[in-house]
């Protein structure tokens, strides 16, 4: 009997060596551990053994069974590994095939720049104030120290709206966001006319000029204007504020430059330039001499402060304006301003 058991074990263990897949494994299990296997037959014939043989044979039989079962578990682990390996090998994807994309929504580039400006100015204490696009001549010009017929009006070619009986106060499409200065100052001053509170706002919005459209000139474009009014605002504050702004928008080492200029509603007035961030100020075909024109600025003219409800003897203020589109054009190398409102998706999808 013992010999037979040894033979069973030897045969089974040698048979399992050649098992390569799940099916052969199952066949092996049926053949060697199944109900009709030699080993199980032997267990079934146990009753016929003598009392003395029983414990010896029994122990040995259990040892063989355990050995076969262990061999089965070990082999089945190996077979599964092999099968997994094979299936993994077969499941290789071409990872260069395109993925399934969900449609991506995008903000207009102008909105993207505006949001950045809102954030930067917000951190500097400037709140957003918006006002209307169609204005009276009074708000767009006269209250901003552009008298009727003044040559300064030549600086801003204007669209007039058909309207009758308005004399020197026709309706115009605003040529700049500055009429909002008067509206904001008046609104603010109305809160306490004897001691008007300080103002620190930005005025974004669309403006219109009577101008032939080409790659560099638009008849409709947007501006963002800043305004700070208080008892102690100075030109050096204006320089500091814009230098901060430039560093935050264009890089922490970027330098700013202020050139004397003229705007009727500021005095002193300046153009402000930043060192070209494309060439580092060395001079390139975008900037020419190493500087990029970014906007205009100045101390608010006393007449404008007065018109806004602020006594120019007690208050000073500064104002500045810049073009979000100009910033976008410089940053992204856009060479045609008409792209902005033409809404060609081949352009918009690049942002």
């Amino acid at each position, binding site marked *: 009997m013992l010999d037979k058991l040894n033979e069973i074990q030897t045969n089974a263990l040698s048979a399992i060596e050649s098992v390569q897949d799940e099916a052969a494994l199952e066949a092996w299990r049926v053949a060697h551990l199944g109900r009709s296997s030699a080993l199980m037959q032997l267990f079934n014939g146990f009753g016929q053994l003598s009392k003395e043989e029983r414990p010896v044979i029994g122990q040995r039989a259990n040892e063989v069974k355990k050995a076969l079962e262990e061999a089965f578990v070990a082999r089945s682990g190996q077979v599964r590994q092999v099968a997994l390996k094979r299936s993994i090998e077969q499941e290789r994807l071409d990872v260069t095939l395109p993925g*399934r994309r969900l449609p991506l*929504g*995008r*903000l*207009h580039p*102008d*909105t993207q720049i505006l949001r950045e400006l809102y954030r930067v100015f917000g951190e500097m*204490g400037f*709140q957003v104030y*918006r006002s*209307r*696009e*169609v204005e009276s001549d009074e708000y767009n010009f006269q209250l901003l120290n552009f*008298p009727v*017929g*003044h*040559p*300064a009006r030549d600086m801003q070619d204007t*669209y*007039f*709206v058909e*309207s009758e009986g308005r004399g020197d106060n*026709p*309706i115009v499409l605003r040529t700049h966001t500055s009429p909002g200065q008067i*509206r904001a100052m008046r609104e603010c001053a109305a809160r306490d006319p004897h001691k008007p*509170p*300080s103002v*620190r706002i930005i005025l974004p919005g*669309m403006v219109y000029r009577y*101008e*032939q459209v080409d790659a560099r000139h638009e*008849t409709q474009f947007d501006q963002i204007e800043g305004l*700070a009014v208080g008892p102690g605002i*100075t*030109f*050096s*504050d204006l*320089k*500091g*504020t814009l230098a901060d702004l430039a560093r935050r928008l264009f890089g922490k080492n970027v330098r700013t430059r*202020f*050139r*004397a*200029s*003229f705007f009727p509603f500021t*005095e*002193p007035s300046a153009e402000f330039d930043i060192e070209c961030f494309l060439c580092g100020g060395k*001079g*390139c075909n975008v900037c*020419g*001499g190493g500087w990029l024109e970014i906007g205009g600025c100045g*101390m608010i003219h006393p*007449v404008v402060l007065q018109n806004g409800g602020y006594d120019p003897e007690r208050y*000073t203020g500064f104002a500045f304006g810049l073009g979000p589109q100009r910033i976008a054009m410089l940053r992204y190398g856009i060479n045609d301003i008409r792209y902005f*409102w033409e*809404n*060609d*998706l*081949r352009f*918009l999808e690049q942002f």
Partner: protein
Amino acid sequence: MKAPLSWLKDFVDIDISIADLAHLITMAGMEVEEIRILGLPMPAPGRVDARLSGLEWDREKIVVASILEVFPHPNADRLTLCKLFDGQQEHIVLTGAPNLFEYKGIGPLPKVLKVAYAKEGAQIYDGHQEGLVLTKLKRATIRGVESFSMVCSEKELGISDEHEGILILDEDALPGTPLADYLGDAVLDVKLLPSFARCASMLGLAREIAAITGKPLKQLQAPSQPPAGKADFAEIEITNPEMNPRFVLGLIRNIEIRPSPEKVQRRLKMAGMRPINNIVDATNYVMLEIGEPLHAFDYDVLVKSAKNKPVKIITRTAKAGEKLTTLDGVERKLDETTVLVCDQAGALSIAGVMGGRESDVYDAAQEVLDARGIEPQAGEFPKGKASARGKSTSSILLEGAAWNFINIRKTARAYALHSEASYRFGRGVHPALAERGVRRGLELMHAWANGEVAPGLVDAYPLPAKDPTVEITSADVKRWLGVEIPIKKMKLMLERLEFTCTLESKQRLLVTLPDHRMDIGEGITGKADIVEEIARIYGYDNIPETRIADELPPQLGNPLLDKEERIRDLLVAQGLQETISYRLTTPEREARRLRPDAPTDDQPYVCIANPIAPDKAVLRHSVLASLLDTAERNARVRERLALFEIGPAFRASESGDPSSGSGQGLPDELQRVVLLLAGPRSLPGWQPVDATPMDFYDLKGVLSALLDGLRIPAVGFRPAEHPSFHPGKCARVMSGDKQIGVVGELHPQVRGQYDWPASFRSPVQVAEIDLDVLLTLIPTLHQTEAVPTLPPVLEDLAVVVDENLPAERIAELIRQTGGKVVSEVRLFDVYRDEKIGAGKKSLAYSLTYQAVNKTLSDKDVAGLRARILRRLEQELGAVLRR
């Protein structure tokens, strides 16, 4: 204004480079837009803000030479050979210059001709090509004669377009001198802002340069006075001194009209003016030199017109129906606000803008020669030939005046007559210059045209300039500029600009204006004006950068903007692309958004009185129309469109303006959100996708998610009719009883009014939301609910109802009956077939039962379910489908 460097040097020493000079002028507010180099060293590009143009003349290779003799060319009639001396040796040089023909074959010239001589290898412009094409002189053989150098025309040197003959230099030029040293120059093209009108002359610009660089200004020698005596040649009558504060006349007799000296002509050309003759050139020269435009009348014409009475000049506004033929030959109907210079017979000129033809300086010789197409040569100028007007002008009545700049600007614009004179008078010329200008003009005419200056000037000055005095303190400067500038330093800086300054006390300066400035006001405006002058001369660069020390005003934020931006985010998150359109359009273009048989849009448009192009006639009525235009264009390049735009629509307002509250009659600006979907739900890929065209429910889904994301309460959709939409596929979007907007599929007829490419067959889904209403409905705050910890019970429920019953009513009733326990009701199937019956539909809902505080038992759910079914049956006639 174009300012030649050599001319500026008449008034100020300039010892810095052109690039540095341009930089300083630019920084002080007079932007140098272009530097045109005429021979001098070219500044290195990249360090100059201005555009660079022109040509640098090589000092070795382009020099002054003398032509000693001119020979005929052996093989060509149109060419000559010149023997010339370049300071070192003699050469034979080939040229075709017609202005040398007269010297051909006459032997050694009695008086040598000084010319510009370019040697082999010199870089010049090609005289035979259009425009400015650079070329390098190479050795060549022309008609059997070897040539390696040339005498240059103005064009070849980049001085002007002149290529008819070679440039003949003045006699004082020394052979061998580098031409750049003798003739080299640079022209600065300076952009003058309206407040810099005082700089529209060489003297004016030089004065600024002197102040900036600290060099002394070389004052023009006071022009000589006319001989003493009573000026009896004319009278002046000024009818409105506000319009004409000053009028000055001088007289010069027996002049000879001829070309001006070469140097004068060259200066005028560099400054952008065409030399005409010595008299006209003298008036222009004075204008460019000191800034006073002059006008020269033919005195004999005026004498004749006065018919034995004294000549009387009257300035007045035009009479109704009055006409004048101006210098340019155009007969103009005059406006009654136009100021005229007249004599007793009628108008002579439009004051400060343009002269009349009748009394113009008349050069009979020029007219005869012009008719023959010949240019007159120096020295052989024919005199007094017969012509229509008889003889050439021989006596000049010279006008210098001061005019109201607002009126001049208006006049120049009204007649579209923009002259050098109207440019200056339209920006303000100080009355002091009227008299100075006439004196200088007479002086130059005397020098260039001989003649005798008549005694005295007639000077009417009814409204003397005010020249205000401004008081300024160190504290003012500190308050505006944020920088301490000692009062004595301020005084020095202002004196450099010729302000007269008196130190009133240790801190107070009284500043009186020089008599060339019109841009400084009175009181606090004057203070600001003076502070600006101090800042400019002090240098903006020298003012420090500081952080605002003032108290920060309350930070209120802008909640409406925040909400608007939230809308953008929600739409972008759903895959829509934002667009921003032109707001100017035409009513016809916008009408395409409406069904052709629908009533036309009769709301008043905001119409542009001066449209720049016919397609920019009005401000848009409809953002929807803008977005449809955008879709139409993009359908050519994109199959699938998912777009939105936020912006205003405009309506002219008769009654006033509610949004500004000012009642100024300004238009309404109505803010809109417009959404558009068209094309396949998904773009085709390499695997199957859902490419069915997007329909009403796609857009409704986007809209619902938007309104949900904004937490708009009680959102509902009600069937609606709208002139843009398909009548069966259109809904009003409601929040409670308030309409927010409209959504639908574009009516096929409306879709047909747009030019879609043939490949684009999809219907177009559009929604238009009233942003002003929507913003009022977005809650600022909202409350959250606890995340449930107990298991929910899920159950499906299918009911059969009448086809016409809106699905929303069923869901509404389920929610209402289920209360808080039914936490979600989701429609997952709509089904119709014969078994259900005609006119019926089956709607299947998936319900989630979820209690906050207990685990629901089967019994709880069954009870609730029964109540729901009962109400559905009783109130909506719904039958449970099994």
